[in-house]
């Protein structure tokens, strides 16, 4: 950092803020989607399980967004609270992966989306436990234990439904294929992440793809499902959810998530 021009420090914090929003927003948006299952789960146990996974993600999202607000305050003197970040940003300011904002669909689609996300999430958090930023490492160490259970549950369902009835197999294969193009974005690294990888703060997501593929393929094989091979990936070239480019579904999700605070600003329990 010798004789660096002043804005460098600012840029570091700006990049960190953006990165924390990426981590936190994916958690919050997926938690919201899972929350939509309340009262609609196929059986009571799954109703409870889906929302418990959502609750874990919401708690993790809160930790990331709280830290994001503190970094923002450090960087520009005025930081937003976790609530302000979650409830008062428009879609274009959200930095979540497109995969997690996609509608729930049937139980197969919900579980495949979770399966794809969980395996990436686990290895990302594992890598972040070694972050040069102590707070990032601390939050990751907390979250990784919870996500290990998410992975187990998702694997169980993919195997049970893939290697289940002809109907469940067919629906799982459809979900596996349909969601596949949204997985590339998880491992795409842009300039913001590159800068943070260089300083040891961010994890190199591109290095996580090979182990992710190996893990996914092993489960799909056990589930008698065919791994997709398509190479075209949505939003993976610097124009995806992490850059604020979203599908048409995010706005509808945020309308529901943010309604109360938009209609009654500052309302509290």
């Amino acid at each position: 950092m010798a004789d660096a021009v002043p804005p460098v420090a600012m840029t570091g914090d700006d990049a960190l803020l953006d990165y924390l929003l990426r981590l936190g927003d994916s958690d919050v948006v997926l938690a919201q989607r899972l929350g939509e299952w309340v009262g609609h789960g196929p059986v009571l146990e799954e109703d409870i399980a889906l929302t418990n996974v959502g609750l874990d993600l919401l708690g993790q999202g809160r930790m990331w967004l709280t830290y994001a607000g503190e970094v923002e305050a450090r960087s520009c003197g005025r930081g937003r609270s976790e609530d302000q970040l979650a409830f008062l940003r428009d879609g274009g300011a959200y930095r979540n992966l497109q995969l997690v904002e996609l509608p729930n669909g049937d139980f197969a689609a919900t579980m495949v989306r979770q399966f794809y996300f969980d395996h990436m999430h686990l290895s990302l958090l594992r890598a972040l436990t070694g972050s040069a930023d102590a707070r990032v490492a601390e939050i990751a160490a907390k979250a990784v234990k919870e996500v290990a259970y998410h992975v187990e549950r998702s694997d169980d369902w993919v195997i049970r439904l893939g290697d289940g009835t002809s109907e469940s197999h067919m629906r799982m294969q459809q979900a596996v294929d349909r969601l596949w193009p949204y997985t590339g974005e998880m491992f795409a690294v842009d300039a913001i992440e590159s800068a943070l990888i260089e300083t040891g703060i961010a994890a190199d997501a591109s290095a996580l793809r090979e182990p992710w593929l190996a893990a996914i393929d092993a489960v799909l094989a056990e589930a008698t499902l065919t791994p997709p091979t398509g190479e075209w990936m949505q939003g993976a070239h610097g124009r995806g959810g992490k850059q604020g480019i979203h599908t048409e579904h995010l706005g509808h999700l945020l309308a529901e998530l943010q309604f109360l605070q938009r209609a009654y600003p500052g309302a509290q329990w």
Partner: protein
Amino acid sequence: MVSTDQHAEQRALVDATYDERAIVALAWEALGTVPDPEVPVISIVELGIVRGVAFDGGRLRVEVTPTYSGCPATELIETMIRERLAASGLRDVDLVRRLSPSWTTDWLAPEGKAKLVAFGIAPPHRVENRIDVAGIGPLRRTDAVVPCPRCASPRTRLLSQFGSTACKAQYRCEDCREPFDYFKPH
């Protein structure tokens, strides 16, 4: 239960002596009577979430770590801690939420585990370093034996990885046929 007289006595102790060690001991005692709102048979001390108590410069500092990130009881527990400490005369309290090292069920007190069994909840196995195991478990897992807390039968089956709260899984005993919660190793 602590009687009103005892409360008055405790408040007098705080006001009069300012003996650091006595106050810290009093705080631990008070915290030991705060129940976990979701598993009320054990206290937050037995749960292992109180990570430190110190008294310095006239203020009490209590460090608490959350169990699960999304645990909805976190805020409630903090309110209960403040109320209970205030009842013992400890009003100038700094509650610090500590994340690291992250909570593990290995911190559950042995007497807490016994209380869980008596309450019908199977206590957690030891974690060691579960998350560091390279790659996640064998695909069709054979889970560790979780004995039934009612009839002690080892023939039990996992129903769901998530139970009535995020920290518990649902099991069923194949012998007495009763469903029960298993406090997951974490």
